[in-house]
């Protein structure tokens, strides 16, 4: 499978994602410069973390104007897989590919730490290899991961199974004290209605090898691969 990893000026997790795709999954990965206008060759597009355009103005706010975003939107409308991690999630929100917005962490500080998240929907292309309710120990690293969405959209997200990950305790209880940034309903990751676009604040690429404090995130990538292969088989 071919993975396209989008690089905006200021993106800084592209090499980490590429390493997992190539070295751990054994798949092909290519960097896509933000000025490119087509993403047709790729089975999955990943928007990695970082600080696109320095995070100035608002995280992700500038990147949505990059030429590649139009191609990514096309790809997504046709059901193509798009995964946004951290800053990539923020870009997907700013671009309107996912509902809601990010505000500064309630601590008003950057937070880099392990968190626990619970798999709320294991039927997406990104979670199909996880068990229902599985708890993952996974790191976050962001200054604005405090997810917000209006009531109407929140209801839709909740009812449509679009909330894929929630911050929780090590044993899986979703409680405010395990929420590292103040996000609404402990939301850590959501999909669009169709389920082909996922945005998540935690970094699955940072926990995909035994040596890197566990492999809880690896199944995000393996799920993508499994899902793509299944779809091909159909």
């Amino acid at each position, binding site marked *: 499978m071919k993975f396209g990893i989008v690089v905006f000026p200021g993106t800084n997790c592209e*090499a980490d994602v590429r390493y997992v795709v190539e070295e751990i999954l054994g798949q092909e990965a290519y960097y896509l410069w933000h000025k490119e206008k087509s993403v047709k060759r790729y089975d999955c597009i990943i928007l990695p973390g970082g600080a696109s355009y320095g995070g100035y103005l608002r995280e992700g706010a500038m990147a949505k104007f990059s030429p590649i975003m139009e191609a990514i939107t096309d790809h997504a409308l046709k059901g193509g897989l798009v995964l946004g991690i951290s800053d990539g999630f923020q870009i997907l929100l700013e671009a309107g590919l996912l509902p809601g917005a990010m505000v500064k962490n309630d601590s008003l500080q950057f937070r880099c730490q392990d968190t626990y998240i619970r798999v709320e929907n294991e039927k997406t292309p990104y979670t199909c290899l996880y068990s229902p309710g599985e708890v993952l120990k996974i790191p976050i690293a962001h200054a604005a991961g405090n997810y917000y969405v209006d009531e109407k959209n929140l209801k839709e997200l909740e009812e449509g199974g679009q909330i894929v990950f929630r911050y929780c305790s090590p044993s899986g209880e979703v409680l405010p004290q395990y929420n590292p940034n103040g996000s609404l309903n402990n939301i850590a990751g959501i999909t669009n209605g169709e389920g082909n676009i996922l945005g998540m604040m935690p970094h699955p690429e940072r926990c995909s090898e035994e040596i890197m404090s566990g492999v809880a995130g690896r199944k995000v990538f393996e799920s993508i691969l499994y899902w793509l292969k299944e779809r091909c088989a159909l």
Partner: protein
Amino acid sequence: MKSETWKEMGLRENEYELIKEILGREPNYLELGMFAVMWSEHCSYKNSKNALKLFPTKGKRVICGPGENAGAVDIGNGKAVAFKVESHNHPSAIDPFRGAATGVGGIVRDILCMGARPIAMLNSLRFGSLDNSRGKYLFNGAVSGIAWYGNCLGVPTVGGEVYFNKNYEGNPLVNAMCIGILNHDDLARGRAEGVGNPVMLVGARTGRDGIHGATFASEELSSESEGEGPTVVGGDPFVEKLLLEACLEVNRAGYLVGMQDLGAAGITGATSETASRAGLGMEIDIKKVPLREEGMTPYEIMLSESQERMLIIPKKGKEGEVERIFKKWDLEAVVIGYVTDDGILRVKNGDKVEAEIPARALTEMCPVYNPEKKEPAYLKETRSFDWRKLPVPENMNKVLLELLSHPSIASKEWIYRQYDHMVGTNTVVRPGSDAAVLRIKGTKTAIAATMDGNGKYCYLDPRTGGAIVVAEAARNLVCAGARPIALTDCLNFGSPEKPEIYWQFEQVIRGMSEAAEALGTPVISGNVSLYNESDKGAIYPTPIVGMVGLIEDTNHIRSQGFQNDGDLIFLLGRTEPELGASMYLEVVHGLETGKVPALDLKKEKAVQELCLEGIGAGLIKSAHDCSDGGLAVAIAESCISGNIGAEINLVKGNLELPELLFGETQSRIIVTVDRNKGEEMRALTEKFGVPVSLIGQVGGEELKIKVNGISGEVINLSISKLEEAWRGAIKCMMD
């Protein structure tokens, strides 16, 4: 020229006379400004150069020693690491956020100059007490500045150290270290080789910011300094990130002859240093320098310290290619001149010659001084201080908790959770252990890195203190399973013009050199920061060591946390009746005095070799250096990190209880082994002639310490209680 002019610029009379002699005429205003900044202590090391010669700088792994933008050492597999530490003390005292942020930016560019990709940063901080709002403001500002810059750049901040002491209240210290990785073939130099090669200015535009930064760094701070706002330059990590990618791309493409960052002294520094290193000259036209502001004078352009700029000397004919790469990253790259053969740095403004100075005169010909030195009088009193006359507290549980919650010992989580310490996916051992460990992708190897310093030790015994700083850094690496390979240093001192301070300076360097020699860790780069004084006096003499070690096999990576129930706990080394200069005296009695613990470098080396061998043999499961707060604090930290208790039985011998529990005797490491491996451990220790004792066993949910001859437990605390004191302390003061 009026004497006021050169005096105002910080030049001495003999220096002004020498400038006239070199030029064979009176310098003009611009030339004088260029000399003044290049001959400041910050750029010329005129007061420190002779003492620095004591450092051992050679070793079989050294690829590039002092004199370049950073040092570089071989780490096998055709790879090398470049690293260096730099201070940004004065700017951080005035504007902690911007001061600390630009400090990070500067050191990253130094590493970049070597053709290396920055892979990790560490920092060493010294602040006054956190019990007042000014102290909190400075500390919080510096931490957020470092976080903002580093996080945006995507270089993980993996470790560091912090001490809080009244002594640094008027003049905090912010030292930043950066480590970069490169293939041997990609090593770049800051040299303007090749007559006729173009000279390009790349990155951000030049503005009026930071003129005289180097001169400012070479003066004492006064209460007026806070009004000197404009000298603190603002940084832009986003531009730095683009600059970093573009420079590495140009280097990889093979277009590069030399590269130099624009830090202190701006264009003046970068042009004269690159030309001088190559033994050549350079002609530049300041009309071609892209400016941020209108109406800038030649003086301002030549001395601006605007951030995120680099000087690039590409191969002739490759200017267009370089420009194309920078354009891709939305940056400017402009030819401002070319390399000449006459050794002269010629600054033109269109057709008009504004300055003509031999490049070497700016970088090499500054007079070198041997300041007067004198042993400070206070040492007689502090050395003879007798702590055995002090009352001994009844409740050692209380003492241990007080020590664990002192911000200098307590968990630094409040700080490092604000730093992205994982980006790059190499950080195998995260902040919070003796050393950070980064795996090297594509190999079986890893590197460990640490920063250490102990100003109080150096104040009370500069020579021993200097040696201990080096030894402790090495010991920290060894505890992570790494063989120390080289060090970088930042020497933070008061005014060298005061004989007592210069004496401390020289003694510290002697001590550091002896330890570096004995432990096989040459000094490959460094920085000197003098004049760290304020209305409140000079800071403690504070050498900071940044050290890197190599782990040949990632299976040998260790951390400080106790591992499994039943593991045996050994103490490598022996506790001596030493309590001087300890955190115990500081916290319990409010005293910063006494004889600093002795350091025997032979013993130190033996303990380190033993620990490495034990780790390599798969015997040692965890290792933790005994330092601030002594044995009890070290064991408590290993319990907290491993989230498991321990039962300890100590033999008092001729020691007083505080010496046994909290004394800071050097060359001690706490290690654990499997419960059935005790004999193997003993056998190994005999080979190295290191005294070693079985002091207890891992297990339970409490830390219990018994001492022979004393009934009951002198320490009995639950791990959760220990952790609460340790983890919450700084957070409690700051949030």
